[in-house]
Every structure is written in C-alpha cells, then in structure tokens.
C-alpha cells in the first residue's frame, strides 16, 4: 500500500472525487463506504429533554470546575444570603473575587517555588540515564528511558531549534513526539536523531514513543 494508494482510498471513503474510480483502492473504499452508510447510525437513546437530576449534576460539576461562584465556600455567615440571593450562581464578585485572587496569588507563589526548586534539582542532578532503543515497528520508534518527560522535552527542544516543527503528545503510560521532517532531511536534524538512537525515517514522518524503563 503506497501513500498515493492510501490517499485515494481515504478520499473515496470520504466521498470525495471520482478520479481513478476503477483503481482497486477506490473500489475497496467505495464498497466500505456503502457498507458503513448502510449501518444504523442512531442508537435508541432515551433521554428526556429536561431532566432536573441531570441538570443539577451538570451545574454541580460546573461549580466544582470553578465556572460558577457557588464552588467557593464563603462561610456559614453568607451561605443563607447566597441561597436566597437573586445573584445565586453568579460568577465570583466582590469578596468572592478577592478571595479567589488571593488563592490564585498563593498558588502562583507555590508554583514559582516549585519551578525554581525543580530547575535547581535539574541543574544539579546528573542527567537521566541515556535512552535505549526498545524497538521500531510500523514506523514508530520506541525509546526507553528512566525519565520520559525530560527526554520528550529535550527531543522537542532540539528539533524545534533545528527548525523542525515537532508536536509532543501524551497518552496513558507513554509520551511521544511527532514531526514531519523537511525533505531532504538536513544534516543537523540527522545528527539530533542519531544522538537519540533514532534512524532517520525514509518518508520523513518521525514518530517517537517514549516509555519509562522498568528496571535498572
């Protein structure tokens, strides 16, 4: 299956274009498209238009997420006032806003301390174990390291510095970096990849998955 073949398959599957209609990829996609469209789309879901319990649950979650002011507890003295106030459910105003601002400044201060601490530890601490190549399959290079986050950041930063637009991603149990490399792949980019034990992809599509090493 070539890239052009896949592209024709994809366009036909999406119902676009009729060029190369007799090409096997187009025939395959057309049959698939017809079959998918013939499947029932709507699942019988019985949902009342209005459901007070559902709404209450949604609003409660909105409060928990800080979208509505009721998520802030201002103390028992004001609770009954808020309950009867026409402004109940309003965004944070007045005292609530001040409280929230204080909380935010506090969090910002904590974050700054954590950041400085982390930077210090990172600078003083020896670098994490060098990544080891776990394998490569289906065009995805798998690297194993004791610190996937650092390796992801490092790889991303090096590729970006070399003019490559790389995208980080995170999934359960792993991280990774995707990039479409310029063609031909410049020497400095090849050097970066080689340093990380990554073979330069022939099609220019770089897909790296980074997992945490399990043992020493």
């Amino acid at each position, binding site marked *: 299956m070539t890239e052009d073949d896949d*592209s024709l398959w*994809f366009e036909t599957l*999406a119902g676009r274009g009729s060029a190369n209609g007799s090409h096997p990829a187009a025939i395959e996609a057309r049959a698939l498209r017809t079959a998918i469209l013939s499947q029932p789309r709507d699942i019988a879901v019985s949902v009342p238009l209005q459901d007070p319990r559902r709404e209450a649950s949604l609003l409660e979650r909105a409060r928990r997420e800080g*979208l509505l002011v009721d998520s802030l507890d201002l103390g028992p003295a004001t609770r009954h006032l808020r309950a009867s106030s026409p*402004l109940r459910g309003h965004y944070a105003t007045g005292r609530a806003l001040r409280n929230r601002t204080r909380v935010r400044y506090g969090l910002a201060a904590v974050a700054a301390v954590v950041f400085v601490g982390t930077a210090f530890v990172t600078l003083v601490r020896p670098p994490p174990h060098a990544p080891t190549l776990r394998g490569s399959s289906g065009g995805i290079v798998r690297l194993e390291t004791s610190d996937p986050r650092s390796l992801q950041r490092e790889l991303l930063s090096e590729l970006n510095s070399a003019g490559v637009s790389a*995208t980080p991603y995170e999934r359960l149990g792993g991280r990774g970096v995707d990039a479409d490399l310029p063609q031909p792949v410049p020497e400095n980019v090849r050097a970066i990849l080689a340093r990380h034990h990554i073979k330069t992809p022939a099609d220019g599509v770089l897909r790296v998955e980074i997992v945490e090493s399990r043992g020493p």
Partner: protein
Amino acid sequence: MDRFAFMRACREGGVAIEQALRTLDQCYCRILLTEAIRGLHDSDAAADLVQETFIKVWQRCATFQGDSELLPWIRSILRHGLIDRLRARAREVPLDDEQDPDLEVGARIADLSREQIPTPDVQARRRQQDECFRLCWERFQRTAPAHALVMSWIVEDGLTNEEIAQLLGRTPGATREFISQCRKRARIHLAEWRQLVADDAENPAAADV
C-alpha cells in the same frame, strides 16, 4: 441553541452561563450522548463524557468565533474527548506493511467458522453480506475502537486530513499514517466480508438470483 445567544452568555458570564448550560443540556444532550455511546459502548462513561464536554465548551467559549454553527464546534470537542478516552483504554500497536495479510485473512475466516455465521445461500446473499459486515464491524470496533470511529466519521462527515489531525492532535504526516493504519486494520477485521463481496464480484449472476 442560537450561537449568538451562546456568545452573549459567554461575554456576560454569571447567571447567563448557568442558564446557557441548562439550554445546552436540553438542546444537545441527546445528540451528544448518542454519539458518545456509539464510540464508548458504555452509557455511564458516555454521560460523563457529555458532561465533561459541556464544561469544556464553557472553558473554551471565548475561542468560539461564531463563524460556524454551534453544534459542529461542540461535537468536535466531544470527539476529541472520545478519542482521548479510547486511546487511554488501549495502547496502539501499529501494523507493519510486511505482515502477511493472507495469514490474517485466514485467521479471521477461521474465527468466522468458529462463530458459526451461517453459510450464505444465493437468495439471501445480500442480507448475509450486510450481516457479515455488521459482525465484522462490531469486532473491528471492539479491537480498534479509535480507528473504527474515525473511519465512520470520515464516511459520515467527510472529514479532511487536517480535520482529523486536529481531532487527534497529531501532525499531518502522523495523521496520514493513522489513516493508513485504519485501512490495514479494516482489511484484517473485515476480511470475511471482503471475501463475500469479492465472490459476488466474480460471480454476479449468482448474486442476482
């Protein structure tokens, strides 16, 4: 819900948001829940995803420009969440070009025999094909849910490569590879159905009887 009313509520905040959340829930809960159940096959998880989507809608309301209808924008937020949840369930194992599709097809046909899907007779061949497709597709959805879901979105909504890249949060190149993986996986899981279709193409007279 009218998109301009939504944007007004986003600007005003406060009570307007609470009211707008109720309106969103009334207008779109059913549509979104149907789509979420279809992808997750779990009504509780789907209801949670819909609620999460409404919250995200408000967290991102300032980014809605109003140049499209509200529902497609909300749906794309839901779909993004759907893909994230499906990815979290199982790690993707890419299929190589080198894998022998005939072996896979053979294995799937053996599965088919074990599942005792009735041998199609000539008169009911079309119906058998549909039934075979349904079973194969269900298996595809169970084994590679994200790929099956994205394929159905491609067919139903004509998504472009860029739109899929946005949903997946991947580069165009990685998205092309994802689409290629969709095709490879579909070939494997729909092997029995493809075989039936191919048989009909070789022997159209029998299929017309």
